[in-house]
């Protein structure tokens, strides 16, 4: 069955194709910024707009044993977000695809109930009717009062953009795993607390019962037992059994497998605030929430004050009472941490997928430029502390706290609960392992699939085919194994290891004919119950089947064209890919030797980081499909006409060596941003940064770009000002009004090279006279002009140190700085630029600065440019060689040389400094005359 929204794109696509054919072919360079759907007056993202919600959100649902699936909360917590979207209905959908093998109860051969440490399952599903696609993360929480002690929950990231879900699966999965771990950790803690209380109750009950029995015994000297006595004895026995059971449960929960310590993604909370928050968390600890004394000792001391009460040995019927809320199920600290994490996920993944992808690409590339990236980029996120360390630190910390707590709270000798035992972990069994297990079962099949369609790696097409062919095709993407040791059969359906997740996804794509509804389970953690034999059997034919299905359905007019040409088309694409040296594994083998090394590097890193699936995420692979998807929104669009846009952008970013004509770059950037912004109908229009930390800086970038554009247009002397910044001469923006000065400083800050990995050397507002130390520390300063005597001092200091600074007077609109006759800045800051948007301009600046960085890198690391080749070589010839290189090889003119030299100095300092102790910041300057520029 063809679900309508999915088809829309293709029909349009086809129309477009016709249109293009009828027109005379445009030269390639003109075809780039074309907005192909303008003539239709339609938004290519109309499909997205069909969804009933306005932006992505996260939904937490529960399968309640009392009322069935129910939505619990959404993030953001705003009714507007979900709009008319039926949360109840969708909860039902997502809860119905829970493949967790949660088996709790009395397993055969075990005397006591066994807790099963169930792993989360990760599913991608789409509901074409609702226009919703979701990454669904199922997890199980423990509740002493629940049936089988478990409560199934799920967290879902719901988006109208299928591509986002599919392409960001790895990232979503990793992030949600963190949230889940955090929640489960808190839950285990709460559960253990609950168990302890219950044990105390039971113990107390037992004592009471025991006493009563004794009294009865004494009172009763008749030699036989009354029924009452027998009843009491039975009750006592059941209480004792219950105690043993609960003790066993407690032991189990405390001995929670703690094997995955070293997983890098296994760290749900921030270490810096861990202690604080842990304390506050404990303050409000669920089990003791009625006691609100602040302070640690009191806090920990109050626990023994729990007065046990008499309870019935038989537990109450589960329908009798209100089930605990999610909040109650989890330690408050961890609960808030989880919510924070979910909020962060929401923030991270909001917006159009192309933002996410480009951001990921640029970050991956930036990471590679380890020597130069600090100059103009915010690399703080690249230097985040290794998670492992964080984790360790945190663990020690919290363990301490908890240990203290426990030793105080429990005078009775008990197993000291270390946080360790609360820690949960995703048992990230690499699929490879599982495959080894199941090798015997279907090795042939997987292999054939893997290699048969090696060239059809363009998974996007396959994806689409999948959804075209059926409204509900299952595509198994990844799997996880249960920590408690699932049997082989449970994980048997897991994936073949394929070189790329996409490949795997597309290949295994298959029809599922179980239900007629419109749910497409695209990825799942398979478990025995859900992967029936017949489904497995359908594997080999799955792909070959698809074309026929298309034919049969007959709903797609373009199918005949697409399918026969499929291979060719994809080959074309892959050729293009080869040309630009960007993509996929198959290309690596064939061509682009330059990328042979970096690529494996890249592939390995993410592999280590994301512990969910062993399939390497391969940034570069994602790069390309991502651009396909986001720019064209229709996969075959690339193949036909507009494919150049992403490729060209791509190649420029990647190679950087190609001389890019400025105009085309501008246009590209412009159109990019335009399309992108238009694209994000499903969310707010801010570009979505992949990192929370970048959120603010993203906004800042946009603003700075806008201000910079204004500055360039407004001030004819923008070039020498920018030159000052680039060459390391402190620029002082002098003005009476703080807002104006700060705006200028913000605008200019994008041109300031960093001196280290720390914050930019920019000081937005200073009111006191400056000293030489300030010029050493700051390269861009906003200075207050005052009329008071103090102001005279300020100005006096300025004139005194005038050789170190350029002064931009915001009030009289003058600039006093050295002459600039180079060419570089004019490319960077053309006042006639067609760029309109701040973020676009920011990117433009960024790309030129990146080129500059590479020049500086070359210059810095060419041995013979700095050191004599032979010992007898005079210094002058080295200097000559150096200047020749700068002028001829790097094509730098006049003052541009100074820019590169300054950047080179920064690179040297940074490189030398890295390992050694901090070198004093130094101030370099030139004795050059300054000139006064006026408007």
């Amino acid at each position, binding site marked *: 069955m063809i679900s309508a929204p999915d088809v829309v794109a293709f029909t349009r696509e086809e129309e477009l194709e016709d249109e293009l054919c009828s027109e005379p072919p445009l030269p390639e360079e003109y075809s780039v910024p074309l907005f192909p759907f303008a003539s239709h007056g339609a938004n290519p993202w109309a499909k997205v707009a069909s969804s009933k919600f306005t932006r992505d959100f996260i939904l937490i649902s529960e399968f309640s044993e009392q009322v069935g699936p129910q939505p619990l909360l959404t993030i953001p917590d705003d009714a507007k977000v979900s709009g008319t979207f039926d949360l109840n209905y969708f909860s039902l959908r997502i809860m119905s695809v829970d493949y967790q093998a949660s088996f709790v109860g009395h397993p055969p051969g075990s005397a006591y109930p066994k807790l099963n440490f169930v792993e989360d399952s990760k599913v991608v599903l789409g509901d074409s009717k609702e226009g919703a696609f979701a990454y669904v993360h199922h997890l199980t929480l423990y509740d002493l009062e629940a049936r089988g002690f478990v409560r199934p929950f799920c967290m879902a990231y719901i988006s109208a953009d299928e591509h986002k879900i599919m392409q960001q699966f790895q990232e979503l999965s990793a992030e949600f795993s963190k949230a889940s771990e955090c929640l489960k950790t808190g839950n285990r803690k709460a559960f253990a607390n609950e168990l302890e209380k219950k044990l105390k109750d039971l113990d107390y009950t037992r004592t009471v019962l025991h006493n009563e029995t004794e009294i009865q015994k004494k009172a009763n000297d008749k030699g036989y037992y009354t029924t009452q006595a027998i009843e009491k004895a039975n009750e006592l026995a059941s209480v004792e059994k219950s105690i043993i059971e609960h003790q066993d449960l407690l032991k189990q929960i405390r001995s929670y497998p703690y094997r995955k310590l070293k997983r890098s993604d296994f760290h749900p909370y921030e270490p810096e605030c861990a202690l604080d928050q842990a304390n506050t968390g404990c303050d409000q600890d669920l089990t003791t929430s009625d006691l609100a004394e602040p302070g640690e000792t009191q806090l920990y001391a109050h626990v023994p004050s729990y007065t046990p009460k008499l309870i019935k040995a038989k537990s109450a019927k589960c329908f009798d009472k209100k089930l605990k809320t999610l909040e109650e199920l989890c330690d408050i600290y961890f609960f808030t941490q989880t919510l924070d994490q979910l909020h962060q996920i929401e923030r991270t993944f909001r917006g159009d997928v192309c933002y996410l992808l480009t951001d990921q690409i640029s970050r991956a590339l930036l990471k590679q430029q380890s020597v130069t990236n600090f100059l103009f980029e915010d690399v703080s996120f690249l230097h985040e502390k290794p998670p492992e360390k964080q984790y360790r630190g945190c663990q020690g910390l919290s363990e301490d706290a908890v240990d203290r707590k426990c030793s105080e709270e429990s005078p009775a000798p008990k197993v000291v609960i270390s946080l360790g035992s609360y820690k949960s972990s995703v048992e990230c069994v690499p699929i490879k392992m599982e495959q080894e297990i199941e090798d015997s079962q279907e090795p042939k099949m997987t292999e054939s699939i893997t290699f048969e369609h090696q060239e059809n790696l363009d998974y996007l097409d396959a994806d689409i085919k999948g959804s075209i062919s059926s409204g509900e095709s299952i595509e198994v993407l990844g799997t996880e194994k249960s920590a408690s040791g699932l049997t082989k059969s449970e994980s048997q359906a897991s994936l073949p290891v394929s070189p790329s997740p996409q490949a795997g996804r597309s290949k295994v794509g298959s029809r599922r004919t179980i239900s007629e509804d419109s749910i497409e389970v695209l990825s799942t953690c398979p478990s025995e119950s859900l992967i029936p034999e017949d489904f497995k059997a359908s594997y080999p034919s799955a792909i070959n089947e698809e074309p026929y299905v298309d034919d049969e359905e007959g709903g797609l007019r373009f199918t005949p064209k697409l399918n026969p040409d499929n291979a060719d088309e994809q080959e074309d694409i892959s050729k293009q890919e080869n040309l630009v040296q960007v993509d996929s594994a198959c290309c690596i083998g064939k061509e682009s030797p*330059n990328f*042979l*090394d970096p690529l494996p590097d890249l592939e390995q890193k993410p592999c280590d980081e994301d512990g969910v699936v062993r399939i390497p995420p391969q940034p570069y692979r994602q790069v390309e499909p991502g651009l396909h998807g986001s720019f064209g929104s229709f996969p075959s669009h690339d193949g036909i006409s507009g494919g150049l846009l992403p490729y060209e952008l791509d190649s420029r970013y990647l190679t950087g060596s190609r001389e890019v004509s400025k105009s085309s770059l501008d246009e590209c950037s412009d159109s990019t941003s335009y399309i992108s912004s238009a694209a994000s109908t499903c969310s707010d229009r801010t570009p979505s940064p992949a990192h929370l930390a970048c959120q603010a800086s993203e906004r800042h970038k946009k603003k700075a770009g806008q201000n910079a554009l204004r500055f360039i247009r407004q001030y004819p002397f923008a070039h020498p000002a920018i030159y000052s910044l680039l060459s390391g001469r402190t620029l002082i923006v002098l003005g009476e009004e703080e807002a104006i000065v700060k705006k200028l400083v913000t605008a200019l800050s994008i041109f300031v090279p960093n001196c280290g990995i720390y914050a930019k050397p920019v000081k937005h507002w200073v009111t006191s*006279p400056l*000293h*030489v*130390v300030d010029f*050493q520390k700051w390269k861009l300063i906003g200075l207050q002009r005052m009329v008071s005597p103090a102001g005279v001092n300020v100005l006096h*200091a300025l004139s*005194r*140190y*005038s*050789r170190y600074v350029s002064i931009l007077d915001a009030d009289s609109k003058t600039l006093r700085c050295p002459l600039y006759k180079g060419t570089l800045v004019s490319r960077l800051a053309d006042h006639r630029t067609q760029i309109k948007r701040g973020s676009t301009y920011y990117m433009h600046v960024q790309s030129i600065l990146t080129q500059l960085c590479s020049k500086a890198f070359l210059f*810095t*690391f060419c*041995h013979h440019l*700095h*050191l004599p080749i032979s010992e007898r070589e005079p*210094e002058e010839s080295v200097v000559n060689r150096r200047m020749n290189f700068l002028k001829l090889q790097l094509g730098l003119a006049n003052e541009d040389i100074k820019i590169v*030299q300054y950047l080179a*100095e920064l690179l*040297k*300092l940074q*490189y*030398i400094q890295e*390992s050694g102790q901090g*070198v*004093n910041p*130094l*101030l*370099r*300057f*030139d*004795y*050059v*005359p*300054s000139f006064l520029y006026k408007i």
Partner: protein
Amino acid sequence: SSIQTIGEEQIQNPYTELLVLKGHQDIVRFLVQIDDCRFASAGDDGIIFLWNAQTGEKLFELRGHTHKITAIAPFSSSDASEEKKHLILTASADRTVIVWDCTSGRQVQKVSCFHSTVKCLTVLQRLDVWLSGGSDLCVWNRKLDLLCKTSHLTDAGISALVELPKNCVAAAVGRELIIFRLVASNDGSEGWNVLEVKRLVDHQDNILSLVSVNDLTFVTGSHVGELIVWDALDWTKQASECNFWDSSVHPDVQPEIKLSQSPNETSVQHLTSDEECVFAAVGKGIYVYNLQMKRVIACQRTAHDSSVLHIERLPNRQLISCSEDGSVRIWELREKQQLPAEPVPTGFFNMWGFGRANKQANQAAKKMQENTPAYFLELVGDLIGHSSAVQMFLYFGELGLATCSADHLIILWKDGERESRLRSLTLFQKLAQNGDLQLKF
């Protein structure tokens, strides 16, 4: 009066990089070189810092004095047998002298039996003793045993000491110059006796500076601007320039300028010399006095905006001066081309036509008149960084120049080109060390 300025283009100024060394909490008054790449700084906060002159790294922070430092002197062991040990002596207003080990940064010994603040310290390497001058003169050996001392001289105390040939020392005490001689004690032990040999009372005012030119001559300068050249052997006055700054020498100078010269503007703050000349920092000006010609051969009457505090001769015919106005200036002593077609400075017209003459013009006029091989001091660069008086500086050759100031800072001025080259060298060394030079492709 106008001051010569150089503008922003300073081709000959090699110092294009600076490093600010922070640490002191009060005026930094003294800089003393320890060895090729280390120096010590001291000042009113009583702390002594040891610095690496190349990297600007702070090596040690020596704390022991409770008051401001009044004198500092390097004290290297001359023993050839053991490796050279670098010590420094510091005297403070807390009436102690401390010996520091520059290698370990530890206090070696402390002497606190002084009746007054020690104002000057001199090491006589030849005799392996050191002298402390306060209200009396004490002679100490390396182990800090007091060998001998003079009787109480004056409350004001000795302000300067200089070593003279034949175990003699000249001490400036107020306006008097006292010559002491160290005599080996009679009992044959290593002790010394100190004898007052002669008192010279030629100066009209307090002697501020005292410098030894060579084995035969030494020079003193006083607060009222007298400069006397002495014979170092028989302590006779060889020559004197009592008012060489005085404009009366140069008849063309306007009288009003003469009147405006307060004693403070004529005091000889600091003297330095090479074999031929004595360079005197007099008031705001710098004067070059030729010992052979016995006259001032070049001068810059207003070299700085305010008093010149320290002046030093560089090996390359350059002269550096620092001043209370917070600037450091680099001068070069050049022979004046006696070209008749010398461009006439505008000052000429000023001189005749207007009341206030341009100093340079005066000078030029003077040179023309004297018609002798004239020299002039040309400003080749200025270093502006301190925000307050530059107390002293230390020239480290190609390592750069360290300046200390009342703004609590020490600035290391460096040759940017050289530093850049050195960094490249370090970079490639580190690359090689890290094995990054092997291409990973």
